[in-house]
């Protein structure tokens, strides 16, 4: 028994090993890319973060002192705080605009592809280009928004939108929503279109109201899509840099320094590459943690029903 059993097992194991090898060969190009452009740079960044590493001149091993410094760095803490604030506000704003838009363009109606195209158009503009465009729109004298408000008679004097925190922040949020909402809309649209029409019809026959159908049918069936859109939006917001650098150079009185902006400043303005590397590793850890939490939250809910 045992002998015959092992005899039949052996070739199968060998075959399994062979297919495993073949699989490895198939994914080798992808692995090579990931290793060359992600794993090695991350390891190198980690190595740099353990040094006092100026942009010019010699490096010196300092162990974990860069990481200790981080916890006493008030400017880093305020950068984290601002980034969190921005991420929450902008994500809510993007979803508040993108979801209704997705529902609007999902139904087959006249000109629907024209609507989709128009809403998606800002997405293909680069973020830096969009930021520059909005710097002009928000310019107090030669721009559009301020002078237009004045021409309409809503304000006595053209306001300098980028001069105070609240108005500058609002301008940036509006710009980012204008720029990104189309992309989120497309993702949500694919989720909406994946819901079988029979289900909605059945719910309607059962007498479910429009809100009930949305709450108990559409939303649960879109969990995966929402998770994807959410992770893309949150990750993108945490890594925000261009808009603050270009539109407000860090904002009135440095109140718009995001984490990436701070890392840039430390590395290439103050030339502390080592400290910048340590901050990058910390940011990577934060991003990984947030993504895991998001995935975990949405997966648990999915298995409930």
């Amino acid at each position, binding site marked *: 028994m045992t002998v015959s059993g092992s005899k039949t097992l052996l070739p199968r194991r060998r075959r399994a090993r062979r297919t495993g090898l073949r699989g490895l060969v198939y994914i080798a190009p992808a692995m090579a890319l990931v290793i060359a452009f992600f794993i090695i740079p991350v390891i190198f960044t980690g190595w740099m973060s353990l040094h006092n590493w100026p*942009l010019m001149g010699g490096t010196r091993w300092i162990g974990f002192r860069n990481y200790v410094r981080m916890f006493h760095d008030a400017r880093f803490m305020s950068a984290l705080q601002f980034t969190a604030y921005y991420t929450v506000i902008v994500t809510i704003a993007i979803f508040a605009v993108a979801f209704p838009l997705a529902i609007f363009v999902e139904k087959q109606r006249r000109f629907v592809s024209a609507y989709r195209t128009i809403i998606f158009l800002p997405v293909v503009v680069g973020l830096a280009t969009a930021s520059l465009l909005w710097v002009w729109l928000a310019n107090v004298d030669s721009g559009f928004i301020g002078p237009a408000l004045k021409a309409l008679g809503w304000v006595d004097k053209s306001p300098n939108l980028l001069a105070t925190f609240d108005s500058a922040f609002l301008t940036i949020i509006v710009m980012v929503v204008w720029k990104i909402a189309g992309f989120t809309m497309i993702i949500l649209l694919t989720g909406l279109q994946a819901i079988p029409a029979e289900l909605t019809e059945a719910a309607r026959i059962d007498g479910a109201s429009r809100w009930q159908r949305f709450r108990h049918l559409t939303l649960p069936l879109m969990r995966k899509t929402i998770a994807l859109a959410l992770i893309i939006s949150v990750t993108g917001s945490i890594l925000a840099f261009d808009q603050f650098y270009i539109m407000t*150079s860090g904002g*009135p*009185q*440095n109140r718009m320094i995001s984490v990436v902006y701070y890392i840039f400043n430390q590395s290439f303005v103050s*030339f502390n590459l080592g400290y910048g590397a340590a901050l990058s590793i910390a940011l990577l850890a934060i991003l990984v943690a947030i993504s895991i939490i998001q995935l975990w939250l949405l997966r648990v809910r999915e298995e409930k029903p």
Partner: protein
Amino acid sequence: MIKRLLAATSVATLCLVASASAAEKVEMWVRTGVGDAFKKTVEAYNSSHESQVAMTEVPFSELVQKYATAIAGGQAPDALSMDLIYNPAFAAAGQLEDLTDWAKSLPYFNSLSPSHVKLGSYHGRIYGLPLSVETSVFAWNKDLYKKAGLNPEKAPASWDEITANAEKIRALGDDTYGFYFSGGGCGGCMIFTFTPLVWGSGADILSADGKAATLDTPEMRQAINIYRNMVKKDLVPAGAASDNGVNFLSFTNGKIGQQSLGAFAIGSLVTEHPDINFGVTLIPGATGGTSSFAGGDNFVVTKGTPKIAAVKKFLEYIYSEDGQKIMAKYGSLPTRGDIAEKVLQGLDPRLQVGIDAIAVAKTPYTLQFNDLINSANGPWASFTNAAIFGDDVDGAFANAQSEMQSIIDSGQ
């Protein structure tokens, strides 16, 4: 016929190849916002010399980090026009070519601007030589003065007078303003035009040894009040609050009554905006006296460049009388003391005010100039914006004072 044509073209091609290999092209970077003096000198040099200089303009606020990253990446230009306050840091990092022996062999070495040479020296060796000299001065628009019923030939001597004049000019109409400054976190603009108010009154923002921040003085409070008052009275365009230096030369649009500028701007105004009728004088201190910021650029050479001979030839041209004359015409004050008078002869007399300013001018000496002052996110840049436009002046003073001190301490 065809044969002859072929021969002619091949000879021409040969000539092209020959001249291309003979002419070395020196790559050189220069910062923006310093007027046209250097650009015109390069043009004149290229049209009269075989070896050529290729000039690249880099935004002034990013030149330091771009140059440092280029050095680290092995892509640095052969030479650079470097804001002289950064010269010590780069020389200390061992990234610049030692020019000592060649510099000392120049017959006019001893008459080169001494403060530039001092900032270009490190441990007794010379790594930077003067390229351009600039001081900050106060300019007023004579046409607007006349329209406002003021005496266009009388230079204002105090900030009370400047404020009163600004009010009269503002009364002229909608988009005519009495005063302008780049207050949106432009540390470089503000150290250049605003600190003279404090220096003129005898105070300073750093202690003499550079080891303590001395921001919160009665003189600085007074200076901030002067600017705050003008902003509150709507004498300054609203755009000033977010101008990070891009519109520093707003005076050239002819709708600004008064502004503190640099000698480079005098050159640009004279040569490119001849329609603007303006006068210049020294910047009054907040509580009396006058002062100015003495700045400018040093010419530095990247260590190990193979084109050192061509670079030296170009620099010798800059120091020649022709070169100095072109530089001065566009607002860069002469760097060679021995021929300064000859160079300025026949040029705009207003440049003389820029020269007079040197006597009362200061330059802060610190290795952390970028972190403290020039960086758009440094304490000085945010202080000027918060104190002049913000609601909490005391808070702005306290924050900037402690942040500057902590940057100084971390660099010791």
